């Protein structure tokens, strides 16, 4: 094709497009003219003028140029399906592709996300522990007791267990708790109980509740072992660990959940990262409770080593088959070593007589020798 024919075609060509005025859904077949501004005209349409610098591309069907105009009604649209005409208009609009939504720079979003994650990490690692430490002592005691009551109801339902109350055993248990309580100098009333379940464990709940599970009693060889464990739980009460942990876990779960939102499969990520951070927090609390227990036992003139031995009997050596960064407690062998290092010959009287000890052992009813 020669130039003359091309020019003739261009001159005779109707620059047709489709126009929507943004005030109604009427579809105008319009003719475009490129003057000082874009001139849009049709037979019964009042002339429309769009300044080139206000014209912006918007989403449209592939192959067509669809554009709006900043100074026109927001949804007014011109649609050009002829590629050469679209190119002609595009060449006149200097800011056609400014502020495109796909112009959103991924790098900027990544950068801001990193900043957000960093700030959340700082909050999780520093601000929430601090807040938990400061807030826990401010929680009024009645509220704390209510928390404990709610957990108590749930706990007994889950374990299907009741509190053991053999009178002789109960007397021995109270004597032991009294001795420990005096030495621990707690600022709240303690409500201890023994639960009839074969699981070897003990724990403390808010509101001064201490639970000793019968399974642990069964594995214990002497009163000092049990006393050490109970002193450890009193340490948790003294430091208000369950309340602190509640605030801490609630805060971190919330923030980490916020971060990942509803990305499918993110719950595993949430779970994993939460386990990592809360485990380190909980290890710290356990360490402090151990320190407290050692202190109480030494004040009573008894060896803290007994507790370590009981723990070791229950868990065995842990280092071989668990990942220390995921564990909520320090490794038992490390705890035993720490308590053994502080071992001293007993200087105080035994905490329970032999008769009291055997009464305590059978507080949940007589049992066969394990």
């Amino acid at each position, binding site marked *: 094709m020669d130039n003359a024919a091309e020019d003739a075609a261009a001159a005779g060509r109707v620059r047709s497009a489709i126009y929507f005025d943004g005030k109604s*859904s009427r*579809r105008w077949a319009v003719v475009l003219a490129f003057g000082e501004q874009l001139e849009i005209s049709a037979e019964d349409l009042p002339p429309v003028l769009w300044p080139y610098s206000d014209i912006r591309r918007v*989403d449209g069907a*592939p192959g*067509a140029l669809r554009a709006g105009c900043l100074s026109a009604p927001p949804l007014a*649209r011109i649609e050009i399906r002829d590629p050469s005409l679209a190119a002609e208009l595009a060449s006149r609009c200097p800011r056609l592709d400014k502020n495109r939504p796909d112009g959103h720079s*991924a790098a900027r979003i990544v950068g801001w996300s990193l900043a957000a994650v960093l700030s959340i990490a700082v909050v999780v690692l520093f601000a929430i522990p601090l807040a938990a430490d400061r807030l826990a002592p401010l929680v009024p005691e009645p509220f704390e007791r209510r928390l404990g009551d709610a957990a108590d109801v749930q706990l007994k339902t889950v374990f299907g267990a009741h509190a053991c109350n053999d009178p002789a055993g109960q007397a021995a248990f109270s004597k032991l708790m009294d001795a420990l309580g005096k030495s621990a100098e707690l600022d709240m009333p303690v409500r201890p109980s023994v639960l009839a379940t074969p699981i070897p464990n003990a724990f403390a709940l808010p509101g001064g509740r201490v639970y000793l599970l019968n399974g642990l009693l069964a594995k214990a060889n002497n009163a000092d072992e049990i006393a050490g464990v109970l002193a450890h739980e009193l340490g948790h009460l003294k430091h208000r660990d369950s309340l602190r942990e509640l605030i801490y876990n609630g805060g971190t779960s919330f923030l980490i959940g*916020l971060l990942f*939102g509803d990305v499918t*499969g993110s719950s595993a990520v949430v779970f994993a990262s939460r386990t990592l951070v809360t485990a380190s927090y909980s290890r710290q609390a356990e360490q402090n409770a151990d320190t407290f227990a050692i202190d109480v036992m030494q004040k009573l003139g008894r060896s803290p080593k007994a507790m370590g031995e009981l723990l070791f009997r229950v868990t065995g050596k842990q280092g071989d088959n668990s990942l220390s960064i995921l564990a909520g407690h320090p490794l038992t062998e490390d705890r035993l070593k720490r308590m053994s290092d502080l071992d001293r010959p007993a200087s105080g009287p035994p905490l329970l007589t032999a008769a009291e000890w055997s009464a305590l052992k059978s507080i949940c009813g007589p049992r066969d020798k394990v």
Partner: protein
Amino acid sequence: MNQMSFAPQQPPPLPPVPAGFSGDRGEFFRLTARGAALELATFGFYRFWLVTDIRRHLWSHTAIDGDAAEYTGRGKELLIGFLFAMAILVPIYLVYALISIEAERLKAFGSIPLLIGLYAFGQFAIYRARRYRLTRTVWRGVRFWMDGSGWAYAWRAMLWGCLVLLTLGFALPWREAALERYKMRHSHYGELQGSFAGRGSEFFRQFWWLWLLSPIAIVLFPLAPFAYAQFKAREWRWWLCGLRFGAVRLDSKLLNTAFYGLYWKVIGWFMLLVTVTGVYFGLCGAVVAMLSGGPSAAPAAISRSIPLLVMIGLGYLVLVLSLNVVMRLYLQRDLWAKVMASVHLHGIEAAANVGAKGDLASALGEGFADGLDVAGF
């Protein structure tokens, strides 16, 4: 043209016009794959922009009567809506926690009824999120919009939900019809008011044998995807055929078997990806065992190796993200294309000159939906 010869009093109705989806599959795949990678890099924050890009792609490649729709929502709006929703949800969660403690004290697990409150809030969020999406949908320079109350909707959804529970799913068609009537009655295209003409009994006739079959389908695995695909196809067709905007009526010829392939392909990819990940985990374990030296040390080395844990974590993330891409590709894009190809519109002349009306709704609803994990398309 030849109609002119007998000069009718009124112009004859135009023949039904098709809708259709013309999006390029490769382009959509690249969009979602890149989005998944960015979601990983931004710890999930990219989801607002990804979901916006997906909608922009689907909307702008969907043409009705020859004119493509346009999605005018933006990722930043969703982010801001999400942050606002969080600011409102946080105190609610706190109060919720306090009330559940009180309830637990009275009775173990007595706080479960409170979950129902959260469910109602989820329904509210679904309604408001739909409102956001609809007001960002533009066709021929006129936007769709929505009024009505999210709480009125949540209330209806809850009552109907109770009925569905009590009848073991028997009442589901009537629930869907009633809720859809409420949503469509409050949906508008410019000055055209929407409505929903689908009846629960019609849907029930399509669905009762699937309902009877469902206990068997749940037990017998290969049957379940077929039954579910049938259910979804019938549900989509019934829904589409019930939609009205003024005198504009939709009609769908979606086949009952239309989704079989989609669901089986998703299941196939799922199994393949899980198997590949399993093999990868196995290989990682084997390498760690080999490096540990000696078969006796191997089990301990595997359970204590931190590099192994990191490798497994990465493998898991890649698995989750590729599953996301597969689901979006088949269950959003391909499903949308199939549905759109089946649609015809009758009486489109009623939409030839509709006045613009309606305001933009905020993205707060989408933020709630994200915060409560009930987000939709």
